[in-house]
Protein backbone atom coordinates (compact mmCIF):
# COMPACT_ATOMS: atom_id res chain seq x y z
CA UNK A 1 0.00 0.00 0.00
CA UNK A 2 1.30 3.45 -0.85
CA UNK A 3 2.08 5.98 1.87
CA UNK A 4 -0.43 8.45 0.44
CA UNK A 5 -3.32 5.98 0.58
CA UNK A 6 -2.34 5.03 4.12
CA UNK A 7 -2.13 8.65 5.36
CA UNK A 8 -5.25 9.93 3.61
CA UNK A 9 -8.00 9.26 6.21
CA UNK A 10 -5.61 9.90 9.13
CA UNK A 11 -4.52 13.29 7.83
CA UNK A 12 -8.15 14.18 7.13
CA UNK A 13 -9.05 13.32 10.70
CA UNK A 14 -6.13 15.38 12.00
CA UNK A 15 -7.17 18.32 9.87
CA UNK A 16 -10.72 18.01 11.11
CA UNK A 17 -9.53 17.90 14.70
CA UNK A 18 -7.35 21.00 14.21
CA UNK A 19 -10.25 22.87 12.59
CA UNK A 20 -12.60 21.89 15.37
CA UNK A 21 -10.05 22.98 17.98
CA UNK A 22 -9.49 26.31 16.27
CA UNK A 23 -13.23 26.90 15.97
CA UNK A 24 -13.68 26.28 19.70
CA UNK A 25 -10.83 28.70 20.51
CA UNK A 26 -12.33 31.39 18.25
CA UNK A 27 -15.75 30.89 19.85
CA UNK A 28 -14.27 31.20 23.35
CA UNK A 29 -12.33 34.32 22.37
CA UNK A 30 -15.37 35.88 20.78
CA UNK A 31 -17.48 34.97 23.77
CA UNK A 32 -15.05 36.70 26.13
CA UNK A 33 -14.55 39.84 24.13
CA UNK A 34 -18.19 40.14 23.08
CA UNK A 35 -19.50 41.46 26.40
CA UNK A 36 -21.04 44.87 25.85
CA UNK A 37 -19.96 47.82 27.92
CA UNK A 38 -22.90 49.53 29.58
CA UNK A 39 -23.32 53.05 30.93
CA UNK A 40 -23.49 53.34 34.73
CA UNK A 41 -26.97 53.42 36.26
CA UNK A 42 -26.76 57.09 37.20
CA UNK A 43 -26.95 57.80 33.46
CA UNK A 44 -30.48 56.41 33.35
CA UNK A 45 -31.99 59.41 35.09
CA UNK A 46 -31.54 61.85 37.90
CA UNK A 47 -30.04 59.76 40.70
CA UNK A 48 -31.92 59.78 43.99
CA UNK A 49 -30.22 61.35 46.96
CA UNK A 50 -30.62 61.99 50.65
CA UNK A 51 -30.28 65.73 51.33
CA UNK A 52 -29.63 65.50 55.03
CA UNK A 53 -28.00 62.49 56.69
CA UNK A 54 -29.90 63.19 59.91
CA UNK A 55 -26.86 63.60 62.16
CA UNK A 56 -26.92 66.20 64.89
CA UNK A 57 -24.11 68.71 65.19
CA UNK A 58 -21.83 68.91 68.25
CA UNK A 59 -22.57 72.56 68.73
CA UNK A 60 -25.91 74.30 68.52
CA UNK A 61 -27.04 77.90 68.70
CA UNK A 62 -30.69 78.06 69.73
CA UNK A 63 -32.81 81.08 68.98
CA UNK A 64 -35.98 80.86 71.04
CA UNK A 65 -38.87 83.06 69.91
CA UNK A 66 -41.83 83.55 72.25
CA UNK A 67 -45.10 84.73 70.78
CA UNK A 68 -46.00 87.87 72.78
CA UNK A 69 -49.28 88.72 71.07
CA UNK A 70 -52.40 89.14 73.20
CA UNK A 71 -53.85 85.76 72.14
CA UNK A 72 -51.03 84.08 74.11
CA UNK A 73 -51.86 85.93 77.34
CA UNK A 74 -54.44 83.30 78.31
CA UNK A 75 -51.73 80.63 78.74
CA UNK A 76 -50.10 82.51 81.61
CA UNK A 77 -53.29 83.88 83.17
CA UNK A 78 -54.68 80.43 83.92
CA UNK A 79 -54.58 79.11 87.49
CA UNK A 80 -51.90 76.71 86.39
CA UNK A 81 -49.46 77.81 83.73
CA UNK A 82 -48.68 74.27 82.74
CA UNK A 83 -47.73 72.73 80.46
CA UNK A 84 -46.95 75.99 78.64
CA UNK A 85 -44.30 77.20 81.06
CA UNK A 86 -42.89 73.72 81.67
CA UNK A 87 -42.44 73.11 77.97
CA UNK A 88 -40.38 76.28 77.49
CA UNK A 89 -38.31 75.34 80.53
CA UNK A 90 -37.76 71.77 79.29
CA UNK A 91 -36.79 73.05 75.86
CA UNK A 92 -34.05 75.09 77.52
CA UNK A 93 -32.95 72.03 79.51
CA UNK A 94 -32.61 70.07 76.25
CA UNK A 95 -29.93 72.49 75.11
CA UNK A 96 -28.12 72.30 78.44
CA UNK A 97 -27.99 68.49 78.42
CA UNK A 98 -28.55 67.34 74.84
CA UNK A 99 -25.57 69.06 73.21
CA UNK A 100 -21.96 69.28 74.29
CA UNK A 101 -21.90 72.96 73.37
CA UNK A 102 -25.02 75.07 73.17
CA UNK A 103 -26.03 78.68 73.55
CA UNK A 104 -29.56 80.02 73.83
CA UNK A 105 -30.76 83.42 72.66
CA UNK A 106 -34.24 84.60 73.65
CA UNK A 107 -36.58 86.81 71.66
CA UNK A 108 -40.17 87.90 71.88
CA UNK A 109 -42.13 88.64 68.78
CA UNK A 110 -45.35 90.02 67.42
CA UNK A 111 -45.00 92.06 64.28
CA UNK A 112 -41.46 92.87 65.37
CA UNK A 113 -38.72 90.78 66.93
CA UNK A 114 -37.28 92.02 70.23
CA UNK A 115 -34.19 90.35 71.72
CA UNK A 116 -34.32 89.47 75.41
CA UNK A 117 -31.18 89.34 77.52
CA UNK A 118 -30.11 86.10 79.22
CA UNK A 119 -30.59 82.42 78.42
CA UNK A 120 -33.65 81.68 80.60
CA UNK A 121 -36.45 82.53 78.22
CA UNK A 122 -39.17 80.93 80.35
CA UNK A 123 -38.77 83.62 83.06
CA UNK A 124 -39.96 86.33 80.68
CA UNK A 125 -43.45 84.97 80.21
CA UNK A 126 -44.39 86.17 83.77
CA UNK A 127 -42.97 89.59 83.36
CA UNK A 128 -45.35 92.51 83.62
CA UNK A 129 -46.09 93.91 80.21
CA UNK A 130 -44.58 91.01 78.27
CA UNK A 131 -47.78 90.64 76.26
CA UNK A 132 -48.66 94.33 76.08
CA UNK A 133 -47.57 94.98 72.52
CA UNK A 134 -48.69 98.17 70.78
CA UNK A 135 -51.88 97.50 68.83
CA UNK A 136 -50.13 97.91 65.54
CA UNK A 137 -47.63 95.18 66.49
CA UNK A 138 -50.12 92.75 68.08
CA UNK A 139 -49.99 90.27 65.22
CA UNK A 140 -48.17 86.93 64.96
CA UNK A 141 -45.58 87.35 62.19
CA UNK A 142 -43.66 84.08 62.13
CA UNK A 143 -42.62 84.98 58.59
CA UNK A 144 -40.49 87.78 60.07
CA UNK A 145 -38.62 85.21 62.14
CA UNK A 146 -38.03 82.98 59.15
CA UNK A 147 -36.59 85.88 57.21
CA UNK A 148 -34.42 87.28 59.98
CA UNK A 149 -33.37 84.30 62.10
CA UNK A 150 -29.98 82.83 61.12
CA UNK A 151 -30.61 79.42 59.57
CA UNK A 152 -27.24 77.85 58.98
CA UNK A 153 -26.18 74.33 59.96
CA UNK A 154 -25.67 74.75 63.70
CA UNK A 155 -28.63 77.09 64.28
CA UNK A 156 -31.87 75.82 65.65
CA UNK A 157 -34.87 78.13 65.64
CA UNK A 158 -37.60 77.50 68.20
CA UNK A 159 -40.91 79.32 67.97
CA UNK A 160 -43.59 79.08 70.69
CA UNK A 161 -46.90 80.26 69.27
CA UNK A 162 -50.62 79.52 69.23
CA UNK A 163 -50.49 79.64 65.41
CA UNK A 164 -53.84 81.36 65.09
CA UNK A 165 -53.63 82.32 61.43
CA UNK A 166 -56.33 83.16 58.94
CA UNK A 167 -56.06 82.12 55.32
CA UNK A 168 -54.12 85.24 54.28
CA UNK A 169 -51.63 84.74 57.14
CA UNK A 170 -51.16 81.09 56.14
CA UNK A 171 -50.34 82.13 52.57
CA UNK A 172 -47.78 84.66 53.81
CA UNK A 173 -46.27 82.14 56.20
CA UNK A 174 -46.00 79.44 53.55
CA UNK A 175 -44.32 81.89 51.18
CA UNK A 176 -41.79 82.71 53.90
CA UNK A 177 -41.02 79.02 54.39
CA UNK A 178 -40.75 78.57 50.63
CA UNK A 179 -38.33 81.48 50.29
CA UNK A 180 -36.14 81.04 53.35
CA UNK A 181 -36.33 77.59 54.94
CA UNK A 182 -36.99 75.22 52.05
CA UNK A 183 -34.14 76.40 49.77
CA UNK A 184 -31.71 75.79 52.64
CA UNK A 185 -32.95 72.19 52.84
CA UNK A 186 -33.86 72.64 56.48
CA UNK A 187 -36.43 70.59 58.35
CA UNK A 188 -39.39 71.85 60.34
CA UNK A 189 -40.53 70.04 63.44
CA UNK A 190 -43.97 70.93 64.79
CA UNK A 191 -44.95 69.82 68.27
CA UNK A 192 -48.46 70.40 69.50
CA UNK A 193 -49.08 70.79 73.24
CA UNK A 194 -52.38 71.48 74.96
CA UNK A 195 -52.25 73.72 77.97
CA UNK A 196 -54.38 75.45 80.60
CA UNK A 197 -55.82 78.70 79.32
CA UNK A 198 -57.87 81.56 80.65
CA UNK A 199 -58.23 84.49 78.37
CA UNK A 200 -59.52 85.87 75.15
CA UNK A 201 -59.66 84.15 71.80
CA UNK A 202 -59.87 86.53 68.89
CA UNK A 203 -61.21 86.53 65.32
CA UNK A 204 -64.25 84.33 65.85
CA UNK A 205 -66.88 84.33 63.14
CA UNK A 206 -67.18 86.49 60.05
CA UNK A 207 -67.36 89.65 62.17
CA UNK A 208 -64.22 88.81 64.19
CA UNK A 209 -65.73 88.57 67.64
CA UNK A 210 -63.57 87.80 70.61
CA UNK A 211 -64.66 85.35 73.28
CA UNK A 212 -63.49 84.15 76.66
CA UNK A 213 -62.09 80.63 77.03
CA UNK A 214 -61.38 79.17 80.45
CA UNK A 215 -60.19 75.59 80.66
CA UNK A 216 -60.53 75.44 84.48
CA UNK A 217 -58.13 72.51 84.58
CA UNK A 218 -60.35 70.45 82.24
CA UNK A 219 -57.91 68.61 79.96
CA UNK A 220 -60.55 68.17 77.26
CA UNK A 221 -60.75 71.96 76.95
CA UNK A 222 -57.00 72.65 77.03
CA UNK A 223 -55.96 75.11 74.35
CA UNK A 224 -53.17 74.09 71.99
CA UNK A 225 -49.95 75.96 71.44
CA UNK A 226 -47.19 74.89 69.10
CA UNK A 227 -43.49 74.63 69.14
CA UNK A 228 -41.79 75.02 65.79
CA UNK A 229 -38.25 73.68 65.55
CA UNK A 230 -36.43 74.71 62.41
CA UNK A 231 -32.96 73.50 61.52
CA UNK A 232 -31.01 70.55 60.23
CA UNK A 233 -32.94 67.30 60.39
CA UNK A 234 -30.46 65.71 62.77
CA UNK A 235 -30.69 68.60 65.21
CA UNK A 236 -34.48 68.89 64.98
CA UNK A 237 -34.93 65.17 65.47
CA UNK A 238 -32.47 65.11 68.37
CA UNK A 239 -34.24 68.03 70.03
CA UNK A 240 -37.60 66.26 69.70
CA UNK A 241 -36.16 63.02 71.14
CA UNK A 242 -34.78 64.86 74.14
CA UNK A 243 -37.93 66.92 74.68
CA UNK A 244 -40.20 63.88 74.57
CA UNK A 245 -37.91 62.10 77.01
CA UNK A 246 -38.39 64.91 79.50
CA UNK A 247 -41.96 66.00 78.94
CA UNK A 248 -45.04 63.99 79.84
CA UNK A 249 -47.33 66.54 78.23
CA UNK A 250 -46.32 65.84 74.67
CA UNK A 251 -44.84 63.00 72.65
CA UNK A 252 -44.29 61.60 69.16
CA UNK A 253 -48.05 61.24 68.65
CA UNK A 254 -48.40 65.04 68.87
CA UNK A 255 -45.51 65.88 66.61
CA UNK A 256 -44.53 65.89 62.99
CA UNK A 257 -41.24 66.51 61.26
CA UNK A 258 -41.34 67.89 57.74
CA UNK A 259 -38.01 67.23 56.14
CA UNK A 260 -36.61 67.44 52.62
CA UNK A 261 -36.03 63.68 52.80
CA UNK A 262 -38.71 61.03 52.89
CA UNK A 263 -36.35 58.22 53.76
CA UNK A 264 -33.33 57.87 55.97
CA UNK A 265 -31.82 55.30 53.62
CA UNK A 266 -32.36 55.00 49.87
CA UNK A 267 -33.77 51.86 48.29
CA UNK A 268 -31.04 50.14 46.27
CA UNK A 269 -30.77 46.80 44.49
CA UNK A 270 -28.09 45.46 46.83
CA UNK A 271 -30.30 46.15 49.84
CA UNK A 272 -33.30 44.26 48.45
CA UNK A 273 -34.41 40.75 49.17
CA UNK A 274 -35.46 38.98 46.01
CA UNK A 275 -38.71 37.12 46.53
CA UNK A 276 -39.60 35.92 43.05
CA UNK A 277 -37.51 35.74 39.88
CA UNK A 278 -39.69 33.73 37.56
CA UNK A 279 -38.34 33.39 34.05
CA UNK A 280 -35.36 35.52 35.00
CA UNK A 281 -31.86 34.51 35.99
CA UNK A 282 -29.50 36.79 37.82
CA UNK A 283 -26.17 36.82 36.02
CA UNK A 284 -23.25 39.01 36.96
CA UNK A 285 -21.37 38.47 33.75
CA UNK A 286 -23.84 39.88 31.23
CA UNK A 287 -21.78 42.94 30.42
CA UNK A 288 -18.67 44.80 31.41
CA UNK A 289 -19.62 46.21 34.80
CA UNK A 290 -19.81 50.00 34.95
CA UNK A 291 -18.22 51.94 37.79
CA UNK A 292 -21.08 53.26 39.82
CA UNK A 293 -21.95 54.42 43.31
CA UNK A 294 -25.32 52.71 42.93
CA UNK A 295 -25.88 48.98 42.95
CA UNK A 296 -27.78 47.34 40.11
CA UNK A 297 -29.18 44.01 39.12
CA UNK A 298 -28.19 42.14 35.99
CA UNK A 299 -30.74 39.63 34.81
CA UNK A 300 -31.30 37.42 31.85
CA UNK A 301 -34.76 36.76 30.48
CA UNK A 302 -35.44 33.06 30.00
CA UNK A 303 -37.81 31.80 27.33
CA UNK A 304 -41.10 32.31 29.12
CA UNK A 305 -44.12 34.24 28.00
CA UNK A 306 -44.33 36.18 31.31
CA UNK A 307 -41.47 36.87 33.69
CA UNK A 308 -41.96 38.15 37.21
CA UNK A 309 -39.52 39.94 39.45
CA UNK A 310 -40.62 40.63 43.00
CA UNK A 311 -38.25 42.27 45.43
CA UNK A 312 -38.61 43.56 48.94
CA UNK A 313 -36.77 46.59 50.26
CA UNK A 314 -36.68 48.03 53.74
CA UNK A 315 -38.48 51.33 54.08
CA UNK A 316 -36.58 53.53 56.49
CA UNK A 317 -39.00 56.36 57.31
CA UNK A 318 -37.64 59.59 58.69
CA UNK A 319 -38.42 59.74 62.41
CA UNK A 320 -41.56 61.77 63.19
CA UNK A 321 -42.13 62.40 59.45
CA UNK A 322 -45.46 61.84 57.67
CA UNK A 323 -45.89 58.18 56.84
CA UNK A 324 -46.22 56.64 53.41
CA UNK A 325 -49.77 55.75 52.51
CA UNK A 326 -50.67 54.90 48.95
CA UNK A 327 -54.25 54.03 49.64
CA UNK A 328 -55.53 57.34 48.29
CA UNK A 329 -53.13 57.56 45.37
CA UNK A 330 -54.30 56.42 41.97
CA UNK A 331 -52.06 54.01 40.04
CA UNK A 332 -49.31 53.86 38.96
CA UNK A 333 -47.33 53.73 42.17
CA UNK A 334 -44.15 52.89 40.37
CA UNK A 335 -42.40 54.59 37.50
CA UNK A 336 -40.47 52.38 35.07
CA UNK A 337 -38.16 53.99 32.50
CA UNK A 338 -36.61 51.71 29.91
CA UNK A 339 -33.62 52.06 27.63
CA UNK A 340 -31.89 49.86 25.13
CA UNK A 341 -28.12 49.60 25.42
CA UNK A 342 -26.78 50.07 21.91
CA UNK A 343 -23.81 48.11 20.58
CA UNK A 344 -21.56 51.11 21.17
CA UNK A 345 -22.62 51.21 24.83
CA UNK A 346 -25.04 54.13 24.67
CA UNK A 347 -28.57 54.40 26.02
CA UNK A 348 -31.57 54.78 23.79
CA UNK A 349 -34.97 55.35 25.35
CA UNK A 350 -37.52 52.71 24.36
CA UNK A 351 -41.20 52.50 25.08
CA UNK A 352 -41.94 49.20 26.77
CA UNK A 353 -45.22 50.32 28.30
CA UNK A 354 -47.05 47.30 26.89
CA UNK A 355 -44.27 44.96 27.91
CA UNK A 356 -43.51 45.95 31.49
CA UNK A 357 -45.98 46.42 34.36
CA UNK A 358 -44.78 47.76 37.68
CA UNK A 359 -46.49 47.69 41.05
CA UNK A 360 -45.49 48.73 44.54
CA UNK A 361 -46.99 47.82 47.89
CA UNK A 362 -46.11 48.87 51.40
CA UNK A 363 -46.33 45.84 53.66
CA UNK A 364 -45.14 45.94 57.28
CA UNK A 365 -42.66 48.73 56.58
CA UNK A 366 -41.33 46.88 53.55
CA UNK A 367 -41.60 48.18 50.02
CA UNK A 368 -42.53 45.31 47.72
CA UNK A 369 -41.81 46.02 44.06
CA UNK A 370 -43.33 43.73 41.44
CA UNK A 371 -42.22 43.92 37.84
CA UNK A 372 -44.06 41.80 35.30
CA UNK A 373 -42.43 41.45 31.90
CA UNK A 374 -44.58 40.16 29.07
CA UNK A 375 -41.75 38.60 27.15
CA UNK A 376 -44.03 37.41 24.37
CA UNK A 377 -44.91 41.05 23.53
CA UNK A 378 -41.24 42.01 23.49
CA UNK A 379 -39.81 41.67 20.02
CA UNK A 380 -36.32 43.07 20.25
CA UNK A 381 -33.39 41.05 21.51
CA UNK A 382 -30.50 42.74 23.25
CA UNK A 383 -29.51 44.40 26.48
CA UNK A 384 -31.93 46.77 28.19
CA UNK A 385 -31.61 49.07 31.18
CA UNK A 386 -34.48 49.74 33.60
CA UNK A 387 -34.88 52.54 36.12
CA UNK A 388 -37.64 51.57 38.56
CA UNK A 389 -38.64 53.96 41.30
CA UNK A 390 -41.66 54.79 43.44
CA UNK A 391 -43.94 57.48 42.12
CA UNK A 392 -44.24 59.95 44.98
CA UNK A 393 -46.85 62.65 45.29
CA UNK A 394 -47.98 64.70 48.25
CA UNK A 395 -50.99 62.39 48.57
CA UNK A 396 -48.62 59.45 49.00
CA UNK A 397 -48.10 60.54 52.60
CA UNK A 398 -50.38 60.70 55.60
CA UNK A 399 -50.03 63.43 58.18
CA UNK A 400 -50.57 62.47 61.82
CA UNK A 401 -54.23 62.46 62.85
CA UNK A 402 -53.81 65.28 65.37
CA UNK A 403 -53.03 67.71 62.53
CA UNK A 404 -56.62 67.42 61.36
CA UNK A 405 -58.15 66.68 64.74
CA UNK A 406 -56.87 69.90 66.29
CA UNK A 407 -57.76 72.04 63.29
CA UNK A 408 -60.70 74.31 62.48
CA UNK A 409 -61.27 75.32 58.90
CA UNK A 410 -61.84 78.86 57.74
CA UNK A 411 -65.39 77.92 56.72
CA UNK A 412 -66.14 76.58 60.19
CA UNK A 413 -64.78 79.78 61.75
CA UNK A 414 -66.74 82.07 59.46
CA UNK A 415 -69.91 80.08 60.07
CA UNK A 416 -69.90 80.81 63.80
CA UNK A 417 -72.61 83.23 64.85
CA UNK A 418 -71.85 83.29 68.55
CA UNK A 419 -68.38 83.51 70.18
CA UNK A 420 -69.48 81.04 72.87
CA UNK A 421 -69.90 78.33 70.27
CA UNK A 422 -66.21 78.42 69.34
CA UNK A 423 -64.17 75.41 70.41
CA UNK A 424 -61.03 76.87 71.97
CA UNK A 425 -59.31 73.53 72.03
CA UNK A 426 -58.74 73.81 68.29
CA UNK A 427 -56.55 75.92 66.03
CA UNK A 428 -57.61 77.78 62.95
CA UNK A 429 -56.23 76.39 59.70
CA UNK A 430 -53.74 74.08 61.42
CA UNK A 431 -54.20 71.30 58.87
CA UNK A 432 -54.14 73.70 55.93
CA UNK A 433 -50.86 75.12 57.16
CA UNK A 434 -49.08 71.81 57.88
CA UNK A 435 -50.29 70.09 54.71
CA UNK A 436 -49.43 73.20 52.67
CA UNK A 437 -45.92 73.29 54.07
CA UNK A 438 -45.46 69.59 53.40
CA UNK A 439 -46.66 69.99 49.82
CA UNK A 440 -44.31 72.93 49.30
CA UNK A 441 -41.41 70.86 50.60
CA UNK A 442 -42.22 67.90 48.36
CA UNK A 443 -42.68 70.05 45.30
CA UNK A 444 -39.48 71.90 45.90
CA UNK A 445 -37.19 69.00 46.80
CA UNK A 446 -38.90 66.20 44.87
CA UNK A 447 -37.56 63.64 47.31
CA UNK A 448 -37.11 60.03 46.29
CA UNK A 449 -37.29 56.76 48.13
CA UNK A 450 -34.55 55.36 45.93
CA UNK A 451 -34.27 53.58 42.61
CA UNK A 452 -33.88 50.02 41.42
CA UNK A 453 -31.51 49.90 38.50
CA UNK A 454 -31.69 46.78 36.37
CA UNK A 455 -29.96 45.56 33.24
CA UNK A 456 -31.89 42.89 31.41
CA UNK A 457 -30.68 40.74 28.57
CA UNK A 458 -33.30 39.28 26.31
Amino acid at each position, binding site marked *: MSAGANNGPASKRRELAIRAGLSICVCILLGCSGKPQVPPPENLGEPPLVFDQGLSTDEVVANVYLDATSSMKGFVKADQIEPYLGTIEKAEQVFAIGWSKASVHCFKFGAKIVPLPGESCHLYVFKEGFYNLPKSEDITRIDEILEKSPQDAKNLTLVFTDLYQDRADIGRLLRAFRDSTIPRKLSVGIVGIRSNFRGKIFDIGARSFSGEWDTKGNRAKFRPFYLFIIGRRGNVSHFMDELFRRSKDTGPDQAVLLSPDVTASLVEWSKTK*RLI*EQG*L*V*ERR*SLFQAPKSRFSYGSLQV*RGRSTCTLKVEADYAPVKYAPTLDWNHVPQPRVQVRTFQVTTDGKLQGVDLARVVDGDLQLQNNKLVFTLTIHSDRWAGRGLYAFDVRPNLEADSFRLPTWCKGWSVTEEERLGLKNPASFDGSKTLNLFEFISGLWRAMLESHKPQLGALYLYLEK
Partner: protein
Amino acid sequence: MFNKPRSSLALPVIGVLAGLGVGLPVLYFLEPLVLDPVVSPQAGQTIEDWLREFRQLETLLVILSVAVGLLWHASTFLDAGRSGDLRLVWVGLGILFLAFACWMAVRRLPSVQEGSSGIMLCVAVNALLPYYMASAAFTVASHKYAPWGSRALRKLW
Protein backbone atom coordinates in the same frame (compact mmCIF):
# COMPACT_ATOMS: atom_id res chain seq x y z
CA MET B 1 -4.22 -12.70 51.35
CA PHE B 2 -2.40 -10.64 48.71
CA ASN B 3 -2.09 -12.96 45.72
CA LYS B 4 -1.38 -10.54 42.87
CA PRO B 5 1.93 -9.55 41.24
CA ARG B 6 3.51 -6.44 42.76
CA SER B 7 3.39 -4.66 39.39
CA SER B 8 -0.43 -4.75 39.56
CA LEU B 9 -0.28 -2.26 42.46
CA ALA B 10 0.26 0.46 39.85
CA LEU B 11 -3.20 -0.20 38.38
CA PRO B 12 -5.25 1.55 41.11
CA VAL B 13 -2.92 4.53 40.96
CA ILE B 14 -3.40 4.82 37.20
CA GLY B 15 -7.13 4.27 37.76
CA VAL B 16 -7.28 7.14 40.24
CA LEU B 17 -5.47 9.43 37.83
CA ALA B 18 -7.76 8.37 34.97
CA GLY B 19 -10.87 8.93 37.14
CA LEU B 20 -9.77 12.39 38.19
CA GLY B 21 -8.39 13.17 34.72
CA VAL B 22 -11.78 12.56 33.16
CA GLY B 23 -14.14 13.50 36.01
CA LEU B 24 -12.72 16.92 36.88
CA PRO B 25 -12.53 18.36 33.33
CA VAL B 26 -16.06 17.17 32.69
CA LEU B 27 -17.17 18.87 35.92
CA TYR B 28 -15.26 22.10 35.37
CA PHE B 29 -15.59 22.63 31.62
CA LEU B 30 -18.43 20.62 30.19
CA GLU B 31 -21.11 20.68 32.86
CA PRO B 32 -21.26 24.48 33.24
CA LEU B 33 -22.06 24.64 29.53
CA VAL B 34 -24.86 22.12 30.03
CA LEU B 35 -26.28 23.57 33.26
CA ASP B 36 -25.98 27.29 32.59
CA PRO B 37 -28.84 27.50 30.10
CA VAL B 38 -31.19 25.13 31.94
CA VAL B 39 -30.79 26.01 35.61
CA SER B 40 -32.75 28.87 37.17
CA PRO B 41 -31.55 29.42 40.73
CA GLN B 42 -33.91 30.59 43.43
CA ALA B 43 -34.59 34.34 43.61
CA GLY B 44 -31.63 36.23 44.95
CA GLN B 45 -28.89 33.84 43.84
CA THR B 46 -26.89 34.51 40.72
CA ILE B 47 -26.24 31.68 38.30
CA GLU B 48 -22.51 32.15 38.86
CA ASP B 49 -22.90 31.65 42.61
CA TRP B 50 -25.07 28.60 42.07
CA LEU B 51 -22.53 27.04 39.69
CA ARG B 52 -19.73 27.74 42.16
CA GLU B 53 -21.59 25.92 44.91
CA PHE B 54 -22.37 23.07 42.51
CA ARG B 55 -18.69 22.76 41.58
CA GLN B 56 -17.61 22.76 45.23
CA LEU B 57 -19.92 19.90 46.15
CA GLU B 58 -19.33 17.92 42.99
CA THR B 59 -15.53 18.16 43.30
CA LEU B 60 -15.91 16.36 46.59
CA LEU B 61 -18.15 13.78 44.96
CA VAL B 62 -15.68 13.17 42.12
CA ILE B 63 -12.92 12.57 44.66
CA LEU B 64 -15.17 10.24 46.66
CA SER B 65 -16.15 8.45 43.47
CA VAL B 66 -12.48 7.74 42.75
CA ALA B 67 -12.13 6.58 46.35
CA VAL B 68 -14.97 4.11 45.76
CA GLY B 69 -12.95 2.96 42.73
CA LEU B 70 -10.06 2.30 45.09
CA LEU B 71 -12.42 0.29 47.27
CA TRP B 72 -13.20 -1.83 44.24
CA HIS B 73 -9.48 -2.34 43.60
CA ALA B 74 -8.98 -3.35 47.22
CA SER B 75 -11.72 -5.95 46.99
CA THR B 76 -10.17 -7.43 43.81
CA PHE B 77 -6.77 -7.61 45.48
CA LEU B 78 -8.23 -9.48 48.40
CA ASP B 79 -10.24 -11.90 46.27
CA ALA B 80 -8.66 -14.83 44.42
CA GLY B 81 -11.33 -14.76 41.75
CA ARG B 82 -12.24 -18.42 42.06
CA SER B 83 -15.87 -17.83 42.89
CA GLY B 84 -16.81 -15.30 40.26
CA ASP B 85 -15.44 -11.91 39.18
CA LEU B 86 -17.27 -9.78 41.83
CA ARG B 87 -19.37 -8.00 39.20
CA LEU B 88 -22.15 -7.75 41.73
CA VAL B 89 -19.81 -5.93 44.10
CA TRP B 90 -18.77 -3.55 41.30
CA VAL B 91 -22.38 -2.82 40.36
CA GLY B 92 -23.42 -2.58 44.01
CA LEU B 93 -20.66 -0.08 44.83
CA GLY B 94 -21.67 2.03 41.86
CA ILE B 95 -25.36 2.00 42.75
CA LEU B 96 -24.71 2.74 46.41
CA PHE B 97 -22.45 5.65 45.57
CA LEU B 98 -24.92 6.98 43.01
CA ALA B 99 -27.63 6.93 45.67
CA PHE B 100 -25.30 8.72 48.11
CA ALA B 101 -24.38 11.34 45.48
CA CYS B 102 -28.06 12.04 44.71
CA TRP B 103 -28.85 12.30 48.41
CA MET B 104 -25.97 14.73 48.90
CA ALA B 105 -27.09 16.81 45.92
CA VAL B 106 -30.64 17.07 47.21
CA ARG B 107 -29.46 17.95 50.69
CA ARG B 108 -26.55 20.25 50.01
CA LEU B 109 -27.11 21.97 46.68
CA PRO B 110 -29.02 25.27 46.73
CA SER B 111 -32.53 24.63 45.46
CA VAL B 112 -33.51 25.78 42.00
CA GLN B 113 -36.66 26.91 40.25
CA GLU B 114 -35.91 25.04 37.05
CA GLY B 115 -33.39 22.55 35.74
CA SER B 116 -33.52 19.80 38.39
CA SER B 117 -33.38 16.99 35.83
CA GLY B 118 -30.27 18.46 34.20
CA ILE B 119 -28.63 18.80 37.60
CA MET B 120 -29.40 15.19 38.56
CA LEU B 121 -28.02 13.99 35.24
CA CYS B 122 -24.75 15.83 35.92
CA VAL B 123 -24.67 14.50 39.49
CA ALA B 124 -25.04 10.96 38.12
CA VAL B 125 -22.24 11.56 35.63
CA ASN B 126 -20.00 12.94 38.38
CA ALA B 127 -20.75 9.99 40.61
CA LEU B 128 -20.32 7.22 38.03
CA LEU B 129 -17.85 8.43 35.43
CA PRO B 130 -14.79 8.79 37.72
CA TYR B 131 -15.67 5.44 39.37
CA TYR B 132 -16.00 3.81 36.01
CA MET B 133 -12.79 5.33 34.67
CA ALA B 134 -10.93 4.39 37.83
CA SER B 135 -12.12 0.81 37.72
CA ALA B 136 -13.12 -0.33 34.24
CA ALA B 137 -9.80 -0.30 32.37
CA PHE B 138 -7.46 -0.79 35.31
CA THR B 139 -8.79 -3.78 37.21
CA VAL B 140 -6.39 -6.65 37.88
CA ALA B 141 -6.41 -9.50 35.36
CA SER B 142 -8.43 -11.86 37.57
CA HIS B 143 -11.41 -9.48 37.63
CA LYS B 144 -10.76 -7.41 34.55
CA TYR B 145 -14.05 -8.16 32.83
CA ALA B 146 -16.23 -7.57 35.88
CA PRO B 147 -16.95 -3.88 35.04
CA TRP B 148 -19.46 -3.54 32.24
CA GLY B 149 -17.93 -2.45 28.98
CA SER B 150 -14.39 -3.11 30.18
CA ARG B 151 -13.74 -5.49 27.30
CA ALA B 152 -14.43 -2.75 24.74
CA LEU B 153 -12.55 -0.20 26.79
CA ARG B 154 -9.50 -2.40 27.08
CA LYS B 155 -9.53 -2.90 23.29
CA LEU B 156 -9.20 0.87 22.91
CA TRP B 157 -6.37 0.79 25.40
